[in-house]
């Protein structure tokens, strides 16, 4: 029991470090090789946990080897395009200039139903509005609509739009984030005034308060503190 506990702690620490070194991609964005490595690592790491008769080294060595290979390959593929194509494959253009490229559909073994599912996932229900659709190497579909079908941008409509910047949290669950407050150019006095304007005595009564670059405030009081 104690052995399992200690081994789990060690393997957990190793996996956290490994995943941290490997990068921040989400599971759905993994390249095929990254998915294979993630599956292999989890499988290898679990073996000494399931059987205490298996030395921990039998889990550590494969995990470290896979980690090193993954880091090395991902580094090399960034520098070498040919190696990247060899290992990660290349994107497939499924719709080109509004025409479905049937040969690519066959090559990628993607059915029309699956293509429609992916398009609907991109809020596209009419395939005739699509100029280009590209199946990326991570399995995601990138869709480019005809200019006439794409949502108009303020620039296209010659409108001037204020940039509010990124809203920054200054109070989170009753806790004042002083660094964020200063980052936005405010201080505790300003915060006290804002709270008073909202008839709130303490920051501890606030669930969330954010402020953006234009000084716009989002304020949510904690439930039960009306």
């Amino acid at each position, binding site marked *: 029991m104690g052995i399992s506990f200690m081994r789990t702690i060690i393997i957990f620490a190793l996996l956290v470090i490994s995943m941290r*070194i490997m990068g921040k991609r989400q599971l759905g964005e993994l390249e095929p090789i990254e998915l294979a490595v993630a599956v292999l690592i989890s499988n290898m790491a679990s073996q000494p946990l399931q059987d205490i008769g298996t030395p921990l080294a039998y889990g550590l060595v494969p995990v470290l080897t896979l*980690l*090193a290979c993954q880091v090395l390959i991902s*580094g090399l593929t960034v520098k070498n395009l040919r190696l990247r194509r060899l290992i990660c494959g290349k994107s497939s253009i499924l719709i080109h200039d509004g025409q479905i490229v049937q040969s690519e559909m066959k090559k990628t073994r993607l059915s029309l139903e699956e293509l429609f599912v992916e398009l609907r996932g991109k809020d596209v229900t009419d395939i005739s509005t699509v100029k280009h659709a590209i199946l990326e190497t991570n399995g995601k579909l990138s869709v480019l609509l005809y200019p006439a079908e794409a949502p108009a941008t303020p620039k296209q409509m010659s409108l001037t739009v204020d940039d509010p910047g990124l809203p920054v949290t200054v109070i989170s669950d009753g806790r004042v984030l002083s660094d964020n407050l200063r980052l936005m150019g405010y201080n505790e006095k300003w915060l006290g005034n804002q709270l008073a304007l909202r008839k709130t005595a303490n920051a501890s009564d606030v669930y969330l308060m954010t402020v953006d670059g234009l000084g716009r405030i989002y304020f949510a009081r904690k439930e039960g503190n009306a």
Partner: protein
Amino acid sequence: MKKETFAVLLLALLLGLSILNAWALDKITGRLIGTMDACRSSIDAENWDDAAKQAETALDYWGKKGAYTHIVLRHSEIDALTENFYRLLERIYSRDGAAASCEARLTMEALESMSSIEKLRPGSIF
């Protein structure tokens, strides 16, 4: 580039440790095979006291290497070999020449297999 250098160094370290482990295991099993060979000769000569001494020495040496072997070998393999040693001693104490000789041979085979499995050869890898 730092990460790639770290990866190359890590791979080199792991390969180095694997080679070192194969060498260390070969040394341990080689010594035990030598002792077992001497034990078998004593069994064939019906020199039971010497055969028992050789087998006990081998068992003692195997036990002393437990801290290392438990890190690099499956515990089932370690237990199987320990059982082999005790079975051999049992045959020697009961002075069953044919069975003892066979048991010594079996132990040597197990030791050879244990060593060869860790060596980086196509047969071990595939």
